[in-house]
């Protein structure tokens, strides 16, 4: 399962990196809360499109019924994501991307800490594997910093709100690193990633909606009244669609690799985000040789880091400590160890298999929303390289096909 987890982690990076691309087409005066709400509404809608075809609602609801006690855990994960995402906007505003990005990218180190303390990850691992994971993660963080700097043009002074911005970025790191505790807990308890994502998106949507109501003008907020919103919703929904596919792969990576290895691999999304920015939107067109060198160095270091983490295959001793975390869950919640073990190993026979007619209705409704928004969308006048749009979109489809095929063949998406 290690290879499948690595594949999913890298696939998550490709998709999560691309999720930013559609949002670049949105040029509006809406607040960070409003942008976050629109994108998360897209995530929620997209959850009921392609993923519903993968595993019908009957199977998802049967899994949720068997794991009712984990529903609060999935909701808190969505709440953490929503607040962290909004904090990043404040961080960029107050200290700029160059300082904010490296800070919140340390979430992988927070994740490794929680993985070790709460789930026994890397406990009993060989010194070589521990070194590979730690150094690989540091390399990915370092590379992300280089790639982040390569996109900075000019700089600027943000000194007046520096402390607030740094706190916001550090807070986002803490929240995004901690968010993986619920992810991992769900999987050592035998929950299916698609069921987890279903509840996760509800937690996300509820939180951003509450944030808009509480902090962005309540029912008078511009997002509910501005006529401009209708023209740009499609692009934010598209970003949400791409994000949710990436998140599903990220969930499977966390399930089959653990937090410590899963987060660094999906954090390679920075490389793909930069690829979209530079190749499609020409963001590095006027970059000097220093910036271009940062891109090359950052990309090479990130690939080496991902390689180090990918090759740190858990040994029997490490599996022994992971086994203890499964036993802990079974003991604490009176779960059937055999069922949990088979679900964790991707061998579960899902209850309520097959798709129903209402699944098709749900998918049709979700696709209908996208088509309706697409008809209202205003095509931006932004210059784009359509050849690279085709190449990178092709890579997206290819990565999804490879990861999807691997998950289907080995686990039937369990």
């Amino acid at each position, binding site marked *: 399962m290690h290879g499948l987890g690595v594949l999913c982690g890298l696939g998550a990076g490709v998709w999560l990196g691309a999720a930013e691309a559609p949002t670049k087409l949105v040029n509006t005066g809406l607040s960070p809360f409003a942008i976050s709400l629109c994108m998360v509404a897209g995530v929620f809608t997209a959850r009921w499109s392609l993923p519903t075809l993968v595993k019908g609602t009957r199977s998802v609801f049967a899994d949720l019924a068997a794991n009712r006690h984990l529903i609060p855990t999935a909701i*808190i994960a969505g709440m953490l994501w929503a607040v962290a995402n909004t904090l990043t906007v404040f961080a960029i505003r107050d200290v700029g991307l160059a300082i904010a990005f490296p800070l919140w990218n340390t979430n992988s180190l927070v994740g490794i800490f929680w993985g070790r303390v709460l789930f026994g990850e890397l406990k009993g691992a060989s010194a070589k594997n521990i070194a590979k994971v730690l150094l690989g993660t540091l390399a990915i963080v370092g590379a992300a910093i280089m790639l982040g700097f390569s996109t900075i043009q000019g700089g600027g002074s943000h000194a007046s709100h520096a402390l607030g911005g740094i*706190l916001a970025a550090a807070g986002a790191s803490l*929240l995004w690193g901690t968010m993986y505790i619920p992810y991992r807990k769900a999987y050592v308890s035998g929950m299916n990633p698609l069921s987890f994502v279903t509840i996760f998106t509800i937690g996300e949507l509820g939180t951003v909606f509450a944030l808009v109501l509480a902090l962005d003008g309540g029912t008078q907020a511009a997002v509910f009244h501005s006529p401009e919103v209708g023209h740009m919703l499609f692009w934010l929904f598209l970003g949400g669609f791409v994000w949710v596919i990436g998140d599903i792969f990220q969930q499977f990576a966390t399930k089959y690799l653990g937090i410590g290895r899963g987060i660094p691999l999906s954090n390679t999304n920075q490389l793909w985000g930069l690829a979209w920015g530079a190749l499609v939107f020409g963001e590095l067109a006027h970059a000097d040789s220093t910036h271009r060198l940062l891109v090359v160095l950052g990309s090479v270091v990130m690939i080496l880091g991902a390689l180090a983490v990918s090759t740190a295959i858990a040994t029997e001793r490490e*599996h022994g400590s992971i086994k203890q975390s499964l036993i802990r869950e079974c003991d604490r919640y009176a779960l059937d160890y055999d069922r949990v073990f088979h679900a964790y190993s991707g061998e579960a026979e899902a209850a309520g298999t097959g798709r129903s007619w209402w699944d098709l209705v749900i998918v049709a409704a979700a696709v209908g929303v996208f088509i309706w928004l697409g008809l209202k969308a205003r095509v931006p006048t932004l210059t784009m390289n359509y050849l690279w749009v085709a190449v990178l979109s092709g890579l997206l489809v290819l990565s999804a096909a490879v990861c999807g095929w691997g998950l289907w063949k080995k686990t039937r998406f369990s």
Partner: protein
Amino acid sequence: MVAPVACAPTRTTMTEFEKLRSVLTDSHFLIPLIVFGIGLALLITLH
């Protein structure tokens, strides 16, 4: 991959309410909840 174990968990049955109470007092839930509170407080302060 993790191998199956011969030893069974000590508890065999729990009501859904007991499970829910156990979740809400579990460090796996409490730590994310506390961190969420910290994040929310930070967000309100910065707003």
